[in-house]
């Protein structure tokens, strides 16, 4: 689904992956959130309705995302004019899509913006304990159940295309990770930022105080979400060659 703000740059695109634990969520649940980011950035958003688990187990979702990325390139959109963005499981896809594109020898996009990313299929983060009383939704049990559905029988929880904390990120485009301080998944963001930094990637990690999982859903209603989206847009605009 395209989200096309009026008067935006037609040749700049955010390629968007929805969240929902690879099992739920859709382009409809996330269309307004990504439209806010696109509008603030001044470009279009392509929101991908990738196949969900258990009907479409790993690596199905990442392959669907790569197909859409390649489709954009085939439409004549330059890779340097594309940025990825994804929330929760989609936050992982905002990384693994680039890994898979690199494997296939495709040119890489200009930037990526994982929001509250769920990355660690082994759920090893200490914040599952330290933020347990603050996070209202995500628990280790939920993560392990959804991870099992996503990976399918015999799935490898350390496969870099499912768990990019085991990936080689050398040569990756700039990355802006934005997450809530009250999340049990907070350590996923910290680990990704550390991995990216140690790989020489230009990475920004923003931890927004007192915020829940994918608080950016509150765009257009809560000032914290609107301000966060303005910061994402300000960061990505020059990456896409927008003034």
């Amino acid at each position: 689904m395209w989200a096309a703000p009026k008067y935006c740059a037609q040749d700049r695109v955010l390629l968007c992956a929805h969240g929902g634990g690879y099992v739920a969520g859709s382009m409809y649940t996330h269309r307004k959130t990504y439209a806010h980011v696109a509008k603030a950035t001044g470009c279009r958003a392509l929101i991908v309705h990738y196949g969900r688990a258990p009907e479409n187990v790993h690596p199905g979702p990442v392959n669907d995302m790569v197909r859409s990325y390649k489709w954009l390139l085939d439409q004549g959109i330059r890779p340097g004019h594309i940025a990825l963005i994804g929330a929760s499981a989609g936050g992982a896809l905002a990384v693994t899509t680039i890994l898979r594109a690199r494997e296939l020898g495709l040119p890489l996009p200009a930037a990526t913006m994982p929001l509250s990313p769920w990355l660690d299929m082994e759920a090893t983060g200490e914040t599952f304990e330290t933020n347990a009383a603050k996070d209202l939704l995500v628990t280790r049990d939920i993560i392990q159940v959804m991870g099992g559905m996503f990976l399918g029988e015999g799935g490898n929880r350390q496969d870099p295309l499912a768990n990019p904390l085991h990936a080689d990120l050398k040569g990756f485009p700039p990355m802006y990770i934005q997450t809530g301080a009250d999340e049990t998944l907070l350590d996923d963001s910290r680990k990704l930022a550390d991995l990216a930094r140690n790989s020489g990637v230009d990475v920004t990690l923003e931890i927004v105080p007192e915020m829940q999982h994918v608080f950016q859903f509150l765009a257009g209603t809560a000032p914290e979400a609107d301000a966060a989206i303005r910061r994402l847009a300000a960061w990505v605009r020059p990456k896409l060659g927008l003034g």
Partner: protein
Amino acid sequence: MASKRTEELNALYLEWVAALKANPEMPLDELRHMFEKWERITGEPGGVDYIETNAG
């Protein structure tokens, strides 16, 4: 301190957790239907056209 408006997301998540606790074997279709409520808390940005397309 978080703004009052963030309570909408908190309430949604508490509603989901309560529903899952009451029905731990929730069918997949029902779970997906529940998650579709995510979009309700987002304001419509205005001035944006949505066009469904086949993108690969």
